């Protein structure tokens, strides 16, 4: 670790928008809704799988106050993906704005735009639809069986990159990789574990649901204001879906009320754009909470088989991971999520024989999408549970077993090259890894030395400890691009214009800190604007743990260029060479002999005095590495053996994110991710009836934790210095959510001997497992 001294970076300054938001100033899409906006409401399919045999919208169209009704009969039929990813997208093209085939309960039948919400809702009730109901696919393991109903039988469905795609078999993607020879590795082992794990449906639950509005301006351009993590992908996909040029679309992202990946998807924008174009009125569409659960996106449920072989001395001889992923009614992010299940966990421990298979299937259930952790969450559950199961078998402490095997600085892994995002990956050596120190610090904090085997525990309430090690990435190497524009104002302040999207993470602040550090000024001198496709340069958007690492480097680059310009003007003014100067405290100063000019004087000089020009520049960045952040998580739980109820007593997350550009925000990312993960592990669950309808799409029946559920939580940032990152930084936002499933599962086992391999870990499951002597017959879900 390098002990560099910073002025702005690595300081817990006030987040630049914090007070604005705490004051309740208009900030989000809904706060800008014009009072004359038409309200959009969507009629959802009552069937999980059906074909519309007839539809009559005439009565709805005639209703006073109704301005437009859209359905498959009056919109272009253009196949596309809703996944907000780079072009060409690794997700299959399998979605239409509207279709005559219904693929899940809630699928788009018809949309109404009306003067009021009440009129729109009344109009939906008079749309007459007849369906031919088809048998649905409602279980992950039924999807590829012979004779299974076909979710995507339309001829247009296709993959746009060369990857296996067989919609006629309900197969949305497949990836297979072998390094060495798994069977040989397992044969060499003293012990083998071979278990199935299932992680369940879960939703991001941003407190602001999806919301978009649009209007057509005087030049017939469509202006979309939307809560999106991917404004530029949104612009491209909306243009594609409406069959209009990209130049006709402008996407503005105001503040986002939480995203966590779910807003990396084009969910509302195609319809609001089309409605605005048709009605020439401002239109507004906001999902209800129930629609948010069912019709936006979810975490891909996965049925996983994890095989591991190890010698008695702790050497891992073989790892096999098979993931069967349920992508629901569309293939959004299906391939890349499952690729990450392999690529973000398999390099974590040294092993010569690795096999990975990811198979993604369509079902008639809600669609998977990007969700914080992005496949790594799923794999971490299987992998880190199995690490404990193996440690038990070979009689090693799980902490020791992990410590002797985990990847370290200077190591590489063949997985990095073998597995990318929908294509081959990129070779890399680990240049910063403080996982060993994370383990040590976390173990000390939780009191790992107190840990006793479950057989030594008695009584109704039993406590146990579990741990998990984790890694993620920082951006997608050779694919993701971010850019930033920086220009100087008369008072020495700067406008920083970025396509990067702050979804609450604080990236506007973090990126402004990087600019201020490079420019030698203070945070309050940086005016951030993000994002607006007309105004800000391109950025892929907020996903893949990329913003600090990737967009941060774009900002650092542009600030370097602007700093040079400032020094050059300073040299003219001070009549010396630029090399004799430096920047400090918003001034250009001579390194020796005295003499200085303020940034304001420099800006005024460059604008009004001589050789006038705008001090400013634009810079882009792609990255060639994706340095993983690392973490060690520890959970202490108490199990009530009478009821099976699990309570988390204490949770410790020790994370290495390189230099935390903003330590408080970095802690906040860990704490938020961990709490989300704990809640997902213990209570969050989609309940479906036998027709594929979700039964609990509300916060009363889908339990999110509140402040009173918060266990003692300790976050430890263990700094490293990632030399490829901006000021040594790596990512932090996603990794934290991957720990709670395995750490809590391991802690439950350590408390009472019950091994739970399907989420969530409800009291019922734990109790039944205890009744069965710790082992519950494996029950897979959807």
């Amino acid at each position, binding site marked *: 670790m390098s002990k560099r001294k910073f002025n702005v970076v690595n300081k817990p300054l*006030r987040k630049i928008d*914090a*007070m604005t938001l*705490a004051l309740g100033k208009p900030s989000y899409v809904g706060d800008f809704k014009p009072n004359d906006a038409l309200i959009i409401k969507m009629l959802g399919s009552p069937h999980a799988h059906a074909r519309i045999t007839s539809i009559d919208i005439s009565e709805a169209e005639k209703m006073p106050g109704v301005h437009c009704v859209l359905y498959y009969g009056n919109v272009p039929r253009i196949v596309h993906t809703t996944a907000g990813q780079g072009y060409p997208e690794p997700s299959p093209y399998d979605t239409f704005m509207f279709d005559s085939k219904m693929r899940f309960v809630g699928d788009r039948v018809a949309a109404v735009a009306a003067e009021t919400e009440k009129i729109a809702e009344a109009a939906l009730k008079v749309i007459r639809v007849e369906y031919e109901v088809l048998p649905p696919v409602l279980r992950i393991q039924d999807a590829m069986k012979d004779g299974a109903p076909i979710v995507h039988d339309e001829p247009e469905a296709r993959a746009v990159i060369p990857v296996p795609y067989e919609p006629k078999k309900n197969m949305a993607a497949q990836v297979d990789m072998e390094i060495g020879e798994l069977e040989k590795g397992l044969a060499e082992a003293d012990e083998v574990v071979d278990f199935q794990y299932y992680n369940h449906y879960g939703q991001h639950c941003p407190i602001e649901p999806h919301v978009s509005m649009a209007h057509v301006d005087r030049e017939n351009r469509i202006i979309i204001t939307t809560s999106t993590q991917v404004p530029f992908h949104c612009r491209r996909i909306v243009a594609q879906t409406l069959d209009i040029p990209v130049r006709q679309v402008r996407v503005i992202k105001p*503040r986002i009320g939480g995203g966590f990946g779910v807003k990396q998807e084009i969910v509302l924008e195609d319809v609001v754009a089309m409605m605005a174009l048709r009605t020439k009125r401002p239109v507004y569409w906001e999902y209800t909470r129930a629609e948010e659960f069912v019709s936006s996106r979810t975490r891909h449920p996965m049925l996983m088989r994890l095989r591991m072989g190890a010698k008695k001395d702790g050497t891992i001889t073989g790892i096999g991971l098979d993931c069967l992923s349920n992508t629901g009614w569309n293939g959004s992010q299906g391939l890349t999520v499952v690729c990450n299940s392999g690529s973000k966990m398999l390099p974590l421990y040294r092993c010569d024989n690795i096999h990975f298979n990811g198979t993604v299937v369509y079902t008639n259930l809600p669609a998977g999408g990007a969700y914080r952790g992005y496949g790594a969450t799923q794999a971490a559950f299987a992998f880190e549970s199995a690490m404990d199961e193996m440690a038990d078998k070979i009689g090693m402490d799980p902490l020791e077993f992990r410590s002797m095997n985990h990847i370290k600085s200077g190591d590489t892994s063949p997985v990095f090259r073998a597995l990318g995002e929908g294509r081959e990956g990129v070779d890399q050596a680990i240049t910063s890894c403080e996982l060993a120190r994370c383990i040590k610090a976390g173990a000390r904090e939780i009191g790992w030395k107190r840990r006793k085997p479950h057989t030594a525990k008695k009584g109704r309430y039993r406590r146990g400890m579990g741990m998990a090690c984790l890694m993620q990435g920082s951006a997608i190497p050779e694919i993701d691009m971010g850019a930033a524009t920086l220009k100087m104002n008369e008072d020495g302040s700067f406008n920083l214009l970025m396509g990067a999207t702050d979804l609450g993470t604080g990236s506007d602040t973090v990126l402004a800190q990087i600019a201020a550090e490079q420019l030698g000024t203070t945070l309050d001198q940086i005016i951030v604007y993000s994002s607006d496709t007309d105004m800000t340069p391109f950025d892929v958007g907020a996903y893949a743990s990329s913003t600090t690492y990737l967009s941060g480097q774009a900002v650092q680059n542009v600030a370097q260029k602007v700093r040079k310009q400032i020094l050059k003007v300073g040299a003219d003014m001070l009549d010396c060479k630029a090399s004799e100067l430096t920047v400090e405290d918003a001034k250009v100063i001579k390194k020796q002999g005295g003499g200085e000019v303020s940034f304001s004087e420099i800006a005024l000089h460059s604008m009004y005095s001589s050789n006038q020009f705008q001090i400013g520049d634009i810079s882009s960045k792609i990255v060639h590495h994706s340095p993983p952040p690392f973490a060690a998580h520890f959970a202490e739980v108490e199990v009530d053996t009478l009821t099976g109820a699990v309570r988390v007593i204490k949770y410790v997350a020790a994370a290495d994110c390189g230099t935390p550009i903003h330590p408080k925000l970095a802690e906040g990312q860990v704490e938020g991710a961990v709490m989300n993960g704990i809640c997902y592990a213990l209570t969050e669950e989609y309940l479906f009836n036998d027709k594929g309808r979700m039964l609990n799409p509300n916060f009363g029946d889908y339990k999110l934790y509140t402040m009173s559920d*918060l266990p003692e939580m300790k976050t430890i940032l263990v700094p490293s210095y990632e030399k490829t990152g901006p000021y040594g930084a790596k990512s932090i936002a996603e990794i934290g959510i991957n720990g709670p499933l395995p750490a809590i599962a391991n802690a439950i086992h350590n408390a009472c001997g019950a091994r739970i391999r399907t989420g969530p870990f409800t009291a019922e499951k734990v109790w039944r497992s205890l009744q069965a002597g710790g082992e519950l017959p494996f029950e897979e879900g959807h």
Partner: protein
Amino acid sequence: MNMKSITFTLNNEKRSFDIEPDETLIDLLRRSGYTGTKLGCDTGMCGSCAVIIDGRIVNACILFAFQVDGRTVETIEGVGDFDRPHPLQTAMADAGAVQCGFCTPGIIMAAKALLEQKPNATEEDFNRHLDGNLCRCTGYVKIKEALLSCSSATGGQS
């Protein structure tokens, strides 16, 4: 439409509004420019729309507007501004407790209502009183830290 007129005190100002009989308080507030009160679930389960009515915390999404006729309503807009932020607002901003910020107004209103009744509120009091406020970003750690710092029990002022 069958409009009805109501009058109530909104952020210390007597105001009259024409409302529809089944209009909710949140719809009235938001269409009248009081957009600091957020709609998160529309079923009274997330607390983003929390406002203070006659000193008590209430979810504005499940209250009809006519029910506040003659009463006193306080929204986030009445709590503070850039030049005179409420200590809770300053504490939330400084603690790093504002991530996406969508739940923040509701949390501040709930905490304010509690501290007005009980200036020396304890951790237990905050836990109980804010049990109706969901935050998905922060994990509540820094929110709790911010709120506790405003209790006189920790030497804070609200």
